[in-house]
């Protein structure tokens, strides 16, 4: 069974020209992401993982090389609304209800009214927020707001989900819960997910492929194909297989000088 490549980065290079000199954020990035993959990007601060995600989203422009999304250039893919983006903060509009917030992309993209309501109800079910549609963001906890943000990214049926440390601001217990829910969601919808994280257990638990990056300049240190089964209960984090993969991730980080001063 061949799976198509949905995201392809070739010799990607990105340098930021700042007043303090050039920052070489990405150097020679070559990566293929297949349809249905759950790819985690892990690395220390400043290794370029968020920059890479933003380049895929066409929020940054590469200075050399190319990135293809669904066979088109990143910018065309953005114009075609090929992906949903989840930021680290939920970023919901306080003047709209949760349903109103999820409706935002649907309004902008011109979905007909009847379809809008169906889509909203569907994604609220997916993230387990049924019944909270009429509430306002401040009435929800941090974890629930982030789930609403994920629902918003899923509302318009994009095939790709780009997530930039979405659970970074939440506590451990909520994080575990949300990790489980995210995997269930991925299983049900079969989307291609690119997930940037700081947490090694999170990266190993969630992904089918782990991309270890290192800083100065930002580059890929290692690409690990996970051997864990698709169905993963939280307890899998205590198995030897899990710890081996986590060990390999740590080795990759060490090789990329992530633990140096």
């Amino acid at each position, binding site marked *: 069974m061949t799976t198509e490549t949905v995201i392809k980065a070739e010799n990607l290079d990105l340098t930021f020209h700042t007043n303090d000199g050039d920052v070489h954020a990405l150097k020679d990035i070559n990566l293929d992401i297949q349809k249905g993959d759950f790819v985690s990007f892990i690395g220390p601060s400043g290794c370029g993982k968020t920059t890479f995600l933003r380049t895929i*989203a066409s*929020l940054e422009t590469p200075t050399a090389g190319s990135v293809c999304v669904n066979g088109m250039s990143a910018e065309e893919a*953005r*114009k*075609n*609304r090929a*992906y*949903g*983006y989840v*930021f680290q*903060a939920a*970023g919901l*509009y*306080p*003047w709209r209800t949760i349903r109103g917030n999820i409706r*935002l*992309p649907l*309004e*902008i*993209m011109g979905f007909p009214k009847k379809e809008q309501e169906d889509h909203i109800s569907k994604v609220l079910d997916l993230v387990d927020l049924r019944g909270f549609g009429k509430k*306002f*963001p*401040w009435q929800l906890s941090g974890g629930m707001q982030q789930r609403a943000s994920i629902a918003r990214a899923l509302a318009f049926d994009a095939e790709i989900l780009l997530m930039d440390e979405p659970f970074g601001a939440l506590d451990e217990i909520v994080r575990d819960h949300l990790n489980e829910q995210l995997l269930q969601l991925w299983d049900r919808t079969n989307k291609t997910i690119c997930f940037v994280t700081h947490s090694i257990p999170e990266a190993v638990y969630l992904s089918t492929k782990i991309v270890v990056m290192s800083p100065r300049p930002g580059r890929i240190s290692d690409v690990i194909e996970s051997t864990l089964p698709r169905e993963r209960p939280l307890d899998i984090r205590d198995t030897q297989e899990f710890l081996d993969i986590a060990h390999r991730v740590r080795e990759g980080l060490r090789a990329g000088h992530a633990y140096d001063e």
Partner: protein
Amino acid sequence: MRNFFPVITVVAAIMVIWYGASVWMNSKWVYDQAARAGEEVSFSELIKDTWSQDRPVLPAPHQIVAELYKSTVQKKITSKRSLVFHGWITLSATLLGFIFGTGMGILLAIGIVHNRAMDMSVMPWAIASQTVPIIAIAPMIVVVMSTIGATDFLGKDAATALFGYQPAFMQGLLPKAVIAAYLSFFPVVVGMVKGLRSPDNMQLDLLKTYNASKSRTFWSLRLPSSTPYLFTSLKIGMAGALVGAIVSELSASPLRGLGARMLTGSYYGQTIQIWAALFAAAAMAATLVGIIGMIERYSLKRMGMAR
């Protein structure tokens, strides 16, 4: 309600200081009169006199209140001596000017935020316009507008067709509204520009991922985000519009409105009349700004942006 006692305390303190100042400032006249008649003035006589002069330098609060009562309750509303009549003249100019000024301010702010050329060119002119003394410009505006015939809100014929007569406040309303707008558009421009630019980069990036047009970004993100800033500017703009309306009355004809009352009071030495008009204007300003404040609290609460 928890403001009640502090406010009452401050008001009481002001009253004490005021009555004292009244005695002190009006005493010179009393002493002069007494010296001319060759009489001595006792302290209690001094107090009694300074608090009930016909043309005091500093009227006592009860004199002002009496004058206010006399010119509002005891006069017919249509009388040329009624403060209600003059108050409405000023209020109509203030409100019309406020609407013009706010409308223009918002349009300018939208232009500045969305158009690079306007961003670089409008602000210096807007600032310069505010530094010219309004008291110099007001007569010019009145004269120019009467020359082109744009003075009345509804011309005599149009008003008579609609109402059967031309209401007094409509005469000469337009130049006053323009001057009031002149003073109220600037805070709205400044506040709205800041408000329309207030969404952070993450929010703007999110809309970029939806490939939203500039107009979409404006209506769904920028405009709602700017509401707190808008209300703050509206309060300042309203106060400015009132000042503009009062200043414009000093050079408009016929002499009507609270500003005109203050002017005629100063011509005839009727200091109590001046102060009564002043109180009326202050009360009007406080009420208008208070109403905006109430609308602000309600709206921001509904939009989830209340402090």
